[in-house]
């Protein structure tokens, strides 16, 4: 990273912008590796001491040992639950991850856009608000899992119920967050815009929208993990493909190695999703300091 072997001090950082830029990243990668490494080490130690049954809690060196064997269970086009299928390559694993990610992504996208539109409509059109807000407040606490049968009744088996569940898992929360954000827009912003001659439409597009987006994005990120949980449940129950389906199959076939391998993939994918959202947040909402939720 740096050809400088001196210890990093404040004065050194000032002199060499390259080090100043990379050092924090290197540090956080170091801590992240240590954090995961300690956990893995403890697990391996427990196996070595014989505390952890390798059939039930196989440590990483076992479930990561025979990757091609594991890959066989990943079939991106899988409709046949349980059997070994056409999977088997690294790309079929990526395909399975891709399906789950696509469902999460579409659900989040539709949910985000729809909830902001509905939230804004509630605040802007009084009658619409009076008609919908009580209903939304009542539906909000219902767990997305409870919507699963409804999703299958309405959409059948396949992608739509999974996307619908992700949508449901963020929609109500995000509507309420939108209302809270709109109410929190400083009055002075709106008053100043009015004084400078802005129309209602201009006030919305150029003041209210940029003022509420950062908060909504944080809410979206916090609900990302919830969305991942929900999509796995949907896939396990009845989509026929995706990481959730692989997990369910592994459970049914008592394949502990596959369970942990899939869990690792889920963790990594969720982490990458969060990083992607953070990147979008930094680029699109540049005036907001990046928050410190999550590693790195």
């Amino acid at each position, binding site marked *: 990273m740096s050809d400088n072997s001196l210890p990093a001090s404040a004065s050194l950082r000032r002199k060499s912008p390259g080090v100043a830029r990379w050092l924090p990243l290197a540090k956080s990668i170091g801590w992240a590796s240590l954090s995961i490494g300690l956990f893995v080490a403890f697990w391996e130690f427990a196996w070595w001491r014989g505390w952890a049954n390798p059939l039930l809690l196989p440590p990483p060196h076992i479930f990561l040992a025979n990757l091609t064997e594991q890959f066989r269970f990943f079939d991106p086009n899988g409709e046949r639950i349980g059997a070994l299928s056409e999977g088997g390559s690294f790309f079929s694993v990526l395909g399975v991850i891709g399906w789950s990610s696509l469902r999460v992504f579409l659900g989040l996208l539709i949910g985000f856009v729809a909830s902001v539109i509905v939230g804004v409509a509630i605040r802007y059109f009084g009658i619409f608000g009076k008609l919908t807000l009580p209903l939304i407040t009542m539906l909000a606490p219902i767990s997305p899992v409870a919507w699963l049968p409804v999703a299958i009744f309405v959409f059948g088996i396949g992608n739509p119920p999974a996307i619908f569940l992700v949508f449901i898992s963020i929609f109500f929360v995000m509507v309420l967050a939108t209302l809270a954000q709109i109410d929190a827009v400083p009055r002075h*912003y709106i008053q100043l*815009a009015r*004084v400078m*001659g802005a129309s209602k439409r*201009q006030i919305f597009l150029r003041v209210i929208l*940029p*003022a509420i987006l950062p908060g909504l994005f944080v809410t979206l990120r916090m609900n990302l993990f919830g969305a991942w949980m929900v999509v796995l449940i949907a896939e396990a129950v009845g989509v026929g493909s995706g990481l959730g389906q692989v997990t369910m199959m592994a459970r049914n076939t008592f394949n502990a190695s596959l369970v942990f391998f899939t869990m690792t993939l889920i963790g990594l994918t969720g982490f990458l999703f969060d990083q992607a959202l953070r990147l979008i947040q930094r680029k699109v909402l540049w005036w907001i300091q990046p928050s410190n939720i999550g590693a790195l």
Partner: protein
Amino acid sequence: MLGLSITNVSKVWNPDGPDPVPAVTNLTLDVKPGEFVVLLGPSGCGKSSLLYIVAGLEDATSGTVTFDGLPVKEPSPERGLIFQEAALFPWLSVRDNVGFGLSIKGGQPGARAEKIDKLLRMVGLGGAGDKRPDELSGGMRQRAALARALAMDPKVLLMDEPFAALDIQTRARMQDHLLAIWRASGASVLLVTHSIDEALALADRIVVFTARPGQIKAEISIDAPRPRDLRGPEMIDLARRCEALLAEEVTKAFQEQELL
């Protein structure tokens, strides 16, 4: 009639509620074009309410406000507004903040950019146009807010305790700045403050308010040329007068609060 004319204005907050709050009662005040008027009074005396009514952001419960002979019904760029906190939009650069009103108005982008540059230099922010508002100090932010208001070529600047959040040194500099800008622009200023020194340093005319509901208790014209020496005998006399007038009102306000 040119200038600002406030006639018999009363304002009651929450008039139909169980606990109506009279903010201003039967207030009459004229501000001539180019005049610098300072509203001085204890906090919560309705000075700010009056400013909002003049801005057109709130309706008076009764009475009329006219500007250059026309009744004030809604906000207008000719009545610029400045709050205690700068309230710059954090998602815009300083330059875009100053140009916000101009971009609403439309017009040639080139001419707009030129005007923004001129304004930024005028308030001493020539090099800070591309910064984010949160990179500026409090005084710089308030100067950017001033430039944003001036961009609309206002005929009157309404200022609600504009320097109250700044430290004393910055405050004095900002007051000098404001006087220079006021002279150059020819706009009149209606400035709310609870600081006697600020009123004495700035005003052509000080209007002392009573405790809530706000009424005019006294008007003091100051002819002394600026910059004024606040430690000179004339200013010290005026300061004592203001202090005496205010002290009565503060006592009244406290007694009222104790009754509650």
